């Protein structure tokens, strides 16, 4: 049996190897199609993710800006009152006004802040998707 096994192994080793005959070219075309499909899928995913991020940012913008403005405003009033009570009573009203207006300005700037943050997050997600 072992003699036959050796004969069999030799027969396998000596078996005919098929010529290429365009096979490699055909595989190359298949791989190219696969790559094109992969790139297209990646681009669609990136676009979709970007769109999702922008949509979420826009949807979250209004409630978030109102909430943060209110929060900053009340924090500013509190700070101004504290400042006023520490210093002379006559200055308190002015300080309160300055604090409120400064923090309201900051609150109004939230539009830009949120848009920039959204763009940064969207860009990071798109970059990560492209890397994958």
């Amino acid at each position, binding site marked *: *049996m072992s003699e*036959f*096994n050796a*004969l*069999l*192994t030799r*027969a*396998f080793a000596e*078996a*005919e*190897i*098929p*010529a*290429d005959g365009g*096979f*490699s070219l*055909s*595989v*190359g075309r*298949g*791989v*190219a199609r*696969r*790559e094109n499909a992969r790139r297209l899928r990646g681009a669609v995913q990136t676009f979709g993710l970007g769109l999702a991020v922008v949509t979420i940012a826009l949807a979250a913008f209004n409630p978030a800006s109102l909430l943060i403005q209110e929060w900053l405003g009340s924090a500013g009033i509190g700070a101004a009152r504290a400042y006023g009570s520490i210093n002379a009573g006559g200055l308190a009203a002015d300080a309160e006004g300055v604090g409120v207006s400064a923090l309201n300005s900051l609150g109004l700037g939230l539009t830009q802040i949120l848009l920039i943050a959204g763009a940064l997050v969207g860009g990071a997600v798109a970059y990560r998707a492209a890397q994958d």
Partner: protein
Amino acid sequence: MAARGLLNLAQASEAALILAAQARDQAAFGELVKRRQGWTRALLRRMCAGNHAEADDLAQEAFVRAWDKLKDLETPAAFSGWFRRIAVTTFLMAKRKQRAIFEEIDDSSPLADENSTPESAAGAKIDLERALTRLSEAERLCVTLNHGEGLSHSEIVDVTGLPLGTVKSHVNRGTEKLRRILEAAA
């Protein structure tokens, strides 16, 4: 990176081609296919009982699958075994779709048409491909991996996922069948 450096693909080492292909260089992978296609198609043709068209389709599928999974290959030195596993898995998946394999594990798998096609070889020349067509799918797979690829029984278990006892049984039974076929032909 490695991909751009391979100006002369035909002279590049296989390891360099594999590294370049891992960097998504299609030309390097094409050269790798050129070098490996003969071995791959011969292996699959034996497994497919000489059905060259089916074997070539499976070989193409195996190469495309290898392209997709090249990132998973840890070292170029492991390419042969890694790609053989992909080729065998591709074959097994196709056969499972056809539900043609593993159904015969417990049967006695008698020789198909044992007396219907007397071998024409006058001498001791082995018409291996024809003889292999007379084994069952699972026997052919195990005998090809054992004698053709030099894999041990446990390595065949690893590649095919079949139980060890089944692999041993298929190898022994398939080898014995081949011996009888080829002795009859001699």
